[in-house]
């Protein structure tokens, strides 16, 4: 049914990427920086969406995958003096391995138990970061030195602290992950994941190995979130334990719910919207958490499908 318009879907996504590319030259400095941050974090939301939106597994512990990438990249640069590409790969690998282990354990449970187990593992991860403060910097975190955040590509060296380079790097990661997500959810694997969400027993009966498919989804989701974390450490130069706290497990859930679960562009829309709502309201009030709380409740009460989910339902049935 939705396959009738693959060209339309790809055109839309390429259009969004092109628009973000063009925005680099239009946006004022402050908003350029904000957009770079939003794109890096939208990758986190996309990783979360893969598991929550498509497989229907609600995790309350994705901060651990994000911070696995953050620390995997940040610590190798800080302590071992690794270059940017190696550190990025190290971050993603850490996230994928952690996701494999957590997936093997947590997928033995389901429903409410899955949420609590993921939350507890994330809490352990957070406490471990505090416990090994000698290496991780604990509460204070670490600042990744500006000198080590330079990417050497065949002679040319790119300074990741430069606003335009930073924006383009964030966009590149965002674009790659967006296209990967789009391809994955349209693939056979993606269909099996949706089938598991709709009815796991029936999918099993049809001969699919649901546990293996779910595990693959957890690892993919963990790796994407870790990529976001690694990019965040390298682009913005700060690695801190607050990124591993419960709040950073809740935020991707909020962004995905807001943008629309199980829509490929929803995570971007949700992150963008939430960032600007907080940015604008911070002029009037410091009650940032109040806004997050009210947004969560209003969303589950009145817009459980989110912005793009509602648009898809009303007008654009082909939206992936």
């Amino acid at each position, binding site marked *: 049914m939705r396959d009738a318009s693959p060209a339309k879907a790809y055109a839309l996504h390429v259009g969004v990427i092109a628009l973000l590319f063009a925005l680099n030259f239009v946006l004022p400095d402050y908003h350029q920086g904000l957009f770079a941050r939003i794109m890096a974090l939208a990758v986190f939301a996309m990783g979360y969406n893969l598991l929550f939106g498509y497989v229907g597994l*609600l995790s309350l512990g994705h901060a651990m995958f994000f911070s696995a990438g953050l620390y995997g990249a940040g610590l190798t640069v800080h302590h071992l003096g690794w270059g940017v590409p190696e550190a990025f790969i190290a971050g993603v690998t850490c996230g994928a391995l952690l996701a494999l282990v957590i997936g093997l354990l947590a997928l033995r449970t389901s429903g409410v*138990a899955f949420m609590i*187990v993921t939350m*507890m593992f994330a809490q*352990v991860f957070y406490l471990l970061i505090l416990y090994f403060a000698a290496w991780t910097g604990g509460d204070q975190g670490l600042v990744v030195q500006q000198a080590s955040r330079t990417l050497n590509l065949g002679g040319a060296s790119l300074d990741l602290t430069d606003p335009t380079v930073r924006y383009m790097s964030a966009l590149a990661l965002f674009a790659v992950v967006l296209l990967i997500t789009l391809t994955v959810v349209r693939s056979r694997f993606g269909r099996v994941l949706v089938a598991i969400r709709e009815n796991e027993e029936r999918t099993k009966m049809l001969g699919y190995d649901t546990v293996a498919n779910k595990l693959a989804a957890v690892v993919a989701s963990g790796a994407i979130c870790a990529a976001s974390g690694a990019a965040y450490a390298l682009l913005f130069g700060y690695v801190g334990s607050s990124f591993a706290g419960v709040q950073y497990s809740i935020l991707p859930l909020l962004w995905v719910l807001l943008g629309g679960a199980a829509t490929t562009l929803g995570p971007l829309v949700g992150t963008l919207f939430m960032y600007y709502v907080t940015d604008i309201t911070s002029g009037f009030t410091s009650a940032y958490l109040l806004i997050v*709380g009210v947004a969560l*409740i209003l*969303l*589950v*009460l009145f817009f459980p499908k989110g912005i793009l989910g509602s648009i898809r339902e009303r007008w654009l049935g082909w939206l992936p």
Partner: protein
Amino acid sequence: MHFGPHLLLAALEGLVTSAVLALTALGLSLVFGVMRVVNVAHGEFFMLGAVLAWAISTAISGHPAVGFVAALVVAPLLVGLVALVAERLVLRRLNYNPEGTIVATIGMLYIIQQLALTFYGPEARPVEPPFNYRILLPWFGYSGYKLSVVAASAILLVITWLVLTRTRIGLIMRATQYDRETAQAFGVPVERVYAGVFAVGAMLAAIAAVLIVPISQAHYLMGQDPLLLSFIVVIIGGLGSLRGTVVAAILIGLSDGIISMFFSPTLAKIIATLVVAMVLVFRPQGLFGTTPR
């Protein structure tokens, strides 16, 4: 101090933690058992109880005991009222859907926390204990108030157990827990039972907080540790099992008191959390619970 008295002190401190934890966890366990709702805002009801206790006891002049007793009566009632409103406005509209309610209670957590920060402020404030009596042991003196907290908690637990097993209200609650639809068919007002259980659960947390606030101060972030510990207790004890909850609370409270006196508190938390996660993975019904239907 020698090792023996040191251990006794650690055990006494652990017992006080256990007493407060048992009440808090019982509230969480009731809500989950009867309504199948994971109330992430439970710790904030605890915090709200403590903050209100401070407000009430400072508003009333005279002997500290008067203010404390007033707080012990009024604060839980106010918290119960807040919970009742939240249940009516939010949880009922979600039809108690497990995932929807988890997200909604996370929202409540942030709202209550932020409101407490805005109106109460970031300071930690003490409440005066109703009496200052030190029990002199051969090795050290110990606060009589702390021991009375243990006694009060034990009395409340027994009352709850009696209500659940010996009264008509308890019967209705257990019927709703056992099978919501059949209970409704037999004329049980399920929605009113849910509203009542949610309010009572929050009130138990608030009572625990009022009892503990003369020992540890009232602070707007104080709800986080009780929430995590209550989760741990409820999981180890088996969801919805009163006996299991009490046994697990004593176990966790004592081991927390003893481990954190001899080792780093962070390490104690890491081990406890990891153990609980593993229990949930490999024995989801808890150590004392029965296999869910």
